[in-house]
């Protein structure tokens, strides 16, 4: 193998390393949108004053040309966020060679193991750039689940078709994701090369996890939240992203 990965110079190519992602969910904007029909709501006014603006979780993606593992690095421990922790225990493993991925997700009281092929949305390239964690990234957009507009930024400096969570299927590593409708952004804050062994790619599924496909996961959440009315649809989308 070429020893190109030892350098972080922009001209160089990185084939294995670790990326730290900061996942930011704008809680207040989301609440604001849910309450836009009722802007005199006193409860909401007070919530706005007391809740933090963002829920910020940190994740780490360990990758090589062959595989990647995505783990929770640090969960936002602000006690005020107690009722906004819809999804916990996020971790994921992807093996590029066999086109397969396994993801752990705990949605409130249900634990899922989502096993499927690697997500390959239809990406559109818009020819724009953005600098993320020292890397020039190209902008690509797609629409997921028929309605959710997603913007991703990938870098050709890492020719590994991976990314955080299910955001993949681009020529290079996805370093940034923006989901305006969910008020969520995922941006890499650190990108470093690393010498990795097989032990760095260990992935354990949770006990009592229900094994589903990506579509099965969506359907199960939908059927579980059928009686929640309009809020249910919103909740399912939240759990998908």
């Amino acid at each position, binding site marked *: 193998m*070429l020893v190109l990965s030892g350098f972080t110079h922009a001209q160089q190519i990185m084939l294995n390393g670790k990326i730290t992602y900061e996942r930011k969910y704008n809680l207040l904007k989301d609440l604001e949108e849910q309450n836009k029909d009722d802007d005199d709501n006193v409860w909401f006014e007070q919530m706005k004053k007391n809740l933090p603006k963002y829920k910020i979780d940190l994740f780490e993606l360990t990758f090589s040309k062959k595989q990647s593992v995505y783990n929770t690095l640090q969960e936002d421990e602000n006690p005020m966020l107690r009722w906004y922790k819809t999804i916990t225990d996020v971790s994921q493993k992807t093996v590029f060679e066999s086109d397969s991925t396994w993801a752990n997700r705990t949605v*409130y009281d249900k634990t899922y193991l989502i096993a499927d092929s690697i997500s390959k949305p239809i990406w559109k390239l818009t020819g724009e750039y953005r600098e993320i964690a020292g890397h020039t990234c190209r902008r690509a957009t797609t629409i997921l689940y028929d309605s959710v507009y997603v913007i991703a930024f990938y870098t*050709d400096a890492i020719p590994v078709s991976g990314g955080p969570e299910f955001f993949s299927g681009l020529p290079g590593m996805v370093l940034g994701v923006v989901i305006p409708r969910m008020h969520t952004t995922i941006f890499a804050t650190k990108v470093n090369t690393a010498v990795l062994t097989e032990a760095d790619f260990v992935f354990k599924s949770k006990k009592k996890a229900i094994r589903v496909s990506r579509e099965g996961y969506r359907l199960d959440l939908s*059927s579980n939240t059928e009686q929640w009315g309009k809020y249910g649809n919103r909740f399912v989308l939240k759990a998908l992203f």
Partner: protein
Amino acid sequence: MKQLLILLLLCNSFLNIKAQHTSNLKGALKDTSDFKSVAYANILAINTSDSVLLKYTHASDKGVFELKGLPPIKIRLLITRPGFADYEDFVTLSEGQTTDIGLVNMLSKSTLLKEVIIKDRIDAIRIKGDTTEFLVDSFLTNKNANVEDLMKRLPGIQVDKDGKITAQGKEVKKVLVDGEEFFGDDPTIATKNLKATQVESVQVFDKKSDQATISGIDDGIKEKTINLKLKEDAKKGYFGKASGGLGTDSRYEHDAMINRFNKKQKISAYGAMSNTNKTGLNWEDQQKFGGSDGFDYYNDDDGNSYMTYNNGDDGFYGVGIPQTWYVGAHYSDKKKNDKHAYSFNASHKEMTVRGFDDNFTQYILPDTFYFNRERNDMSNFRKGNTFSTSYNLALDSFTTLKIKLNASQSEYNRLNVYQSENRNALRSLVNSNRRTQSTDGQREELNSSINLIKKFKLAGRSLSVGFTQRYSSVDDDGFLSSDIRFYSNDSTFTSTLIDQKKLNTGVTENYSGNITYTEPFGKKFFVITDYAINFNQDKNKLTTLAKSGGSDYNLFVDTLSNDFFYKNVVNRGGLSLKYQYKKITSSIGGRISQTDLSQNNRITDSARTQLFINYFPAARFNYKIGTSSSFELSYNGRTRQPSLSQIQPLINNNNPLDIYVGNTGLVQSFSNSYEARYNSYKPLKGSGIWSSLRYSNTYNDFAQKSTVTAEGKRTYQTVNVDGNYSLYGSFYHYFNTKKHGFFFNNNVSFSQSQNVNIINDLNNINTNNSVGLGSRIGKEKEDVYYISLEADWDYTRSETSVRPDVVTDYWISEYDFYAEFYLPKKFVFEFNASHTRRQATSSFDKPINNTIINLELKKKFTEKENWHVSVSVRDLLNENVGFRRSATSNFINENVHTVLRRYFMLTVTYNFSSANKNENKK
């Protein structure tokens, strides 16, 4: 043969499918400067018509690549690699063939010298410094145009088919609305969703990067930004409703309210009149029209938030039939980005409540019983004005100052006519009393508070300082006339007459200050200290005057008059240690308070001072299981000092058959309470458990010592007793059946308590047990129907040690059916039937059973659904009764009182709003 044919067909169809994407593309990359091969470059095949990425690959170590399975169309080939300029080419692929583009020369950026000069096309309309501003109205052609359509018309701004905006040659990265980010990072969200008619002007400028704004260090990065300045009237409007209801029995329920808003300014007014149980604004209307002064909001350590709503004490508690009218107004505004927030509220309310209150009480005495029946016919009137104002100031992002003030003034007159009878165990008459009490008076109150809350850069450190002032004064005059007859046997009696005038004045003043400081130690430990001082002063004067022969009340009755001065100063300090990390929240600590009590009876000229030290230890441990379950153990201890009236009461002969005497020998009581709780909430399964077990015991608890004479006259005082405890447990469980969509709620609770009192010098231990069971089943389909059926059973058993032979036990059961249907043509039908059974007991020989049925049919009219007409009936069978029963010590009481009974009502409601608000609502 057949099988072979099928196989061939299958192969054929397989090939057909593949044949659609059999075009291939290959090539090799070379660096133009050092002629090395270019490995790992990204090779992208992009559809020229819609920019969709069709296929991609990476160049091999030798720089060669091959893209397989492409459609036979014209594609955009994009080759990118860090350090090299992008290579772009258009290639037309032919079906089933591999197109070889040969050797591609990649241009290294170091050899690339190209100067790009961007020519700013500034066709400005108005230039303010570095901001270009376009006034929208001069560019508008279509009322329904969105901002994106508008942008296309502005000179110097281009919008492509994806919604991407280019202003003055640069891509616009941000679109702000009134200076704030409208919707995350995607500029198109704002431009596609806002209507052009709402926008006053479009400003284009270069904004410093967010990083620079936050850090204050200018990194030179500037983003082309568009700010949409909204028209003032885009946030202007009004909404309100007017509703009129007329019913049988001359029932009415009318209200009207309007709210006008202009940005953050809110002005509202409301008025209502009714002679039903609707005596004030409900929660929803209070929020929309009454402002937020009645609401209190707070958070606990576990991230739970609570809000309480106090709509004031208007003197109506469900006894009697009220007749009410009130008007009110509210004004609030926020200025300078919410830095200043203030509000004013004013209201006037008048209410008359008429009705009767029937009490039937059994006194269980060591050797006998007494049965007391008392009827109270009442007529109470009250009118009052309230005014409140608040001001919140955000001094900086860490400090807030809150100032609140409220004042109220009310006048009242109360007339109560009591008729009572006491009978002995043989049910023969012992005494009777007819008594009329009338009071005319007024009350004034003024309260204010100032609170300062400061947070610090160090997370977890906080300081709050507060001052509170309270003032109230009461001034009333009344008359008491009473005729008590004591019967020696059924035919002869002696009569005691009372005819007195009572003048009562009282002033209470209270000042308090408190300070709380929290300091974190590391990330897990916090120390919380607090100190408070409270100063309270009461002046109370009661003058009793009797007639001295003539018709004037001019004889001063000193035994029934007093002039009290009462003062207490409380110093309280607390210290606690809290541990909070991941799953565990626990705390331990306590408070100590010192109370200095002094009182002075100015009539007898007797003064008295007392000093109490009270302790309040507390401990709590909470463990979270997963995101939505938790287990908690807690302990609280507290001492309680006797109240002034328990030590030395204001002498009161309002009920001459029931007289309270003070006890100067009272000491403090101390109680311990322990609680264990387990809550689990499973949103996806739609199930949850709430359970709790509480135990508390009290040393030197306050209890009643009563003496009932043979004539049925009771005198009582407060004494200290030991042995009081209570135990309470509850379990609540709900779940859904996924298959049929039914929900079930079940609850079980039990309680056991023991309390001691003294009756005719005998120690009496009362043991009360109760068990409650409840179950509810229902089904709901949003906007179609809601049905629920509920049953509750409660069993109470009360025993007293002085009369173990007398056991009071009874069941009360309640069945409730509720249904709501959304019918076609905007009809809504609501049905509610409840049946209650109250078992007879040894004391109450008649069961009280009734069935209440309420029905309502509503229809919404017009396209906007802003007209609502409803026909309703409350208590169709005319069986409603006001009822309370208690059996807690050796006094067993049953209360029956006036409540509203059957009436039909026709209600018409009109909801109105300015068009703009309506659009927002949809």
